[in-house]
């Protein structure tokens, strides 16, 4: 193979055809309220760890739906399980349980 000094750039476009429906259904079985998220951002806004490191439950749920589970796990690592997000979620999602479920199910693969 010849090296021309430049190559094809990888695509950073999301491809929803690659969404892993089966693993997501396992998550739904564990915590059905994950489907209720309206991405309002309240959880991210009050997050205690969020002031210091990049962490966001909203982005983690989004990353799973966009077929990027590793990014989701990365975003949830700093979680201190303090529960502030559960206090503010307008859709009454048990966010602590959701975070633990995501980590459990997506780390297992």
């Amino acid at each position, binding site marked *: 193979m010849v090296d021309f000094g430049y190559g094809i750039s990888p695509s950073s476009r*999301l491809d929803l*055809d690659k*969404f892993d429906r089966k693993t997501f259904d396992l998550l739904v079985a564990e915590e059905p309220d994950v*489907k209720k998220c*309206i991405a309002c951002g309240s959880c991210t806004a009050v997050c205690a760890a969020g002031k210091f490191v990049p962490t966001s439950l*909203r*982005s983690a749920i989004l990353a799973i739906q*966009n077929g990027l589970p590793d990014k989701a796990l990365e975003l949830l690592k700093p979680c201190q399980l303090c529960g502030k997000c559960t206090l503010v979620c307008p859709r009454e999602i048990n966010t602590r349980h959701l975070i633990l479920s995501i980590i459990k199910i997506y780390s297992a693969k």
Partner: protein
Amino acid sequence: MKNNVLIIGGGPAGIEASAQLQRLGYNVILIEKGSSLGGHLSKWDRLFPDGVHADGVLSSMLKNMSGVKSFTDTQVKSINRLDKSYNVILSNGISVLADAVLLASGFTLFRAEKKEEYGYGIYDHVITNADLEAYFSIGSDSRIDKPKKIGFVHCVGSRDEKAGCRACSKVCCATAVKQACEMKEEFPDAEVYCFYMDLRMFGRHYEDLYLKAQKEYGVRFIRGRVAEVSENADGSLQVKAEDTFSSKPLKVTLDLLVLMAGMRPSDAGRRVGDLLGMSVEEDGFFAVRDSVTSNQRSPLPGVFLAGTATGPKTLPETIADARGASMEIDRYLTDVFPQASDYKKLIREKW
């Protein structure tokens, strides 16, 4: 002498107003340019937010119309003011001396083929919200072929300067969520996506419908406008949008795309409005006498408006608007033609 009221337009607003005015004791003439009454309501399957069947609503409204003289396949040929009334010549040759005219001409659906990038009328599996309602009523459409992945595009022809309409068409978001739920019921294994810019779930029970769509049906809502649709070799659609929540462009392959076409002012209504010299606002709908306190009166004397002729409305709002217009007409006619009030008192005492 009973006053004559001419109602132009046989959709829900016209039907409701005609029933109300007939009960109030007036001589009501209703004309409709199509071959049956009901307007767009007659072409819908189920209504949001509770899924009530449209044909049931329409037939109950039509039942109240006894006594109203209605003419289908009829349009206004000419109309001009004579002293305190309007002399109207209809296309069927009849002429009416109307003491009040109610323009309930409704709306026309935005022609989705104008948005060339969505390929309506070009690709095999792109339909509009109206086509989908027809599918649910009739049961088949050649473009809907056991879809496994379905997408809904909000704001087609609305909130779009290029399409000539800056305004929001109000009802399409609720319709999209309703239809998304209905498609999931019809095709339970399908993935359903709704691509929206802002989700307008303003009415009573609409937020519950949104929650149901997410929780019970697993509809995925993506905030990002569909920008480009192309067809693959096998006829499936490649759809490009941006997921604005993650600030990344996305692509997805779908088997069916439903375009939520918006509400534009009715062409036939504009024709009659021009005959009367009625003013329209920048959004193309008719101007009202006062946008807060006098929404059913036109600036012209004796001309009234009801329904979507003055802008996008939901069905309950249209019916309420028609009832409001009926009250306005009654008040106007009582003031302008006081000698007719004794006959009306006689009719009302008979109830």
